[in-house]
């Protein structure tokens, strides 16, 4: 029927990828989250924050910043590996955006409904410290290199607790698919109640995964000058900053899906509104960490990650086990 290009452009699959929940909505929400973070941090510090970029409290500030950054010159430092220097932020952004293809935003609104959604999400995320190391190494500069190595070491501290904290959800629901986890919560209530410890561990380890304060060691702007991002010029800096907000959005969406019942909620409000209400609540919580906690040291993070977080996540598995099998009568 008709022109194949028009058929492709109006197909549901293409629209899901390009508009919602795909690229366009990710870009717009990423920019709005940047504004939210600046405004929230400013309010905590009794400042005003972005104000002039629109009548509604500077909400267009990040769009203005994006336009400004696009018109800057691309300067690549001497001795840098140009291919990896440019490809690392591009790949990081794709990793962030690919995560959102797995999230069920509402019944039927999901790009890839696969059986193993939860492990695939975590597996894609596992790639990102490698990209950070590659970016830091390729810049041929000292601060990026230190930042890249810190990302590598930091990964060893949080990665195993992150996987094990979601293992509790898998034990209780008996499903690896994100839709399956939501179906379980439809009948049995939100998982945050039986899995409170798991939810706490997940939010701590995912904050470390997102490299946000108090775990922003790879980019620590006050000690190693934005770390692995130090050498990136204008447009590439935009591509480097983007994944941070996209990952924040993706992780909050995953937290909402596996612990807060996803799009489930009382009827009069549509599911997608419930989903975004919960997600924005979690995003604001993670943003408030930034204004609340001081940065940890690398050796503190490694030690706590391998002792406290690992022990707590094993305890969480044991709790989930007894929830499913029942406490044996001895």
């Amino acid at each position, binding site marked *: 029927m008709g022109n194949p290009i028009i058929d492709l452009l109006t*197909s549901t*699959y293409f629209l899901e*990828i*390009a508009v919602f929940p795909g*690229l366009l909505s990710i870009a717009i929400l990423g920019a709005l989250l940047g504004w939210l973070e600046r405004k929230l941090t400013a309010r905590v510090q009794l400042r005003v924050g972005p104000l002039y970029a629109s009548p509604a409290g500077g909400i267009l500030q990040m769009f203005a910043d994006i336009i400004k950054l*696009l*018109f*800057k*010159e*691309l*300067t*690549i*430092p*001497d*001795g*840098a590996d140009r291919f990896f220097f*440019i490809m690392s932020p*591009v790949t990081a*952004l*794709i990793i962030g*955006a*690919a995560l959102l*293809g797995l999230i069920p935003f509402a019944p039927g609104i999901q*790009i890839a409904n696969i059986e193993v959604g939860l492990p695939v999400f975590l597996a894609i995320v596992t790639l990102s410290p490698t990209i950070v190391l590659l970016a830091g*190494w390729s*810049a*041929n*500069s*000292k*601060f990026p*290199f230190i930042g890249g*190595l810190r990302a*590598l*070491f930091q990964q*060893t*501290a949080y*990665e*195993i607790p992150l*996987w*094990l904290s979601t*293992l509790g959800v*898998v034990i209780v629901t*008996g*499903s*690896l698919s994100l839709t399956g986890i939501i179906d379980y919560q439809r009948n049995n209530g939100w998982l945050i109640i039986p899995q409170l410890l798991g939810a706490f561990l997940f939010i701590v380890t995912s904050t470390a995964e997102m490299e946000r304060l108090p775990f922003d060691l790879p980019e620590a702007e006050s000690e190693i*000058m934005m770390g692995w991002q*130090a050498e990136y010029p*204008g*447009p*590439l800096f935009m*591509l480097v900053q983007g994944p941070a907000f996209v990952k924040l959005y993706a992780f909050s969406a995953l937290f909402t899906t596996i612990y807060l019942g996803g799009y489930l909620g009382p009827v009069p409000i549509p599911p997608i509104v419930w989903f975004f209400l919960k997600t924005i609540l979690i995003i604001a919580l993670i943003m408030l960490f930034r204004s609340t906690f001081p940065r940890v040291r690398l*050796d503190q993070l*490694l*030690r706590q990650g*391998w*002792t406290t977080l690992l022990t707590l996540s094993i305890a969480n*598995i044991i709790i989930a*086990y007894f929830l499913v*099998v029942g406490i*044996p009568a001895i």
Partner: protein
Amino acid sequence: MVAQGIPEETGYILFLFAATILLVVVVRMVISPRDPRPTPEKRAPFESGQISAGPGRTRFIIQYYPYILMFVVYDVIAMFLFAWALNLRALGATGTVPVLIFMVVALPPLAYALHLANQRENW
């Protein structure tokens, strides 16, 4: 729409990849200003305002290396638990015995490795 045998997600990821690279290339070609003759200072790596000296790729932070070795081993071990967790309802309490043995074998070496990794005098 997508060829047989290739998952639909492949198309999504390829599309993202092409779109982002295209953005960089177009920006570079069209709107980004160009400096035909950058000075050596401009292209020098950033070093807090100092004149940069020496190679950028300096020495590794080696003191946390034991944690990486532990990570390589125990990250893989943690994955095995997912196969058990998924089938826990079907296996019941009796299916847990092998996993329990597995954990008993895996955790004491972890504790010992952690004990060694935490000793600062060995760094």
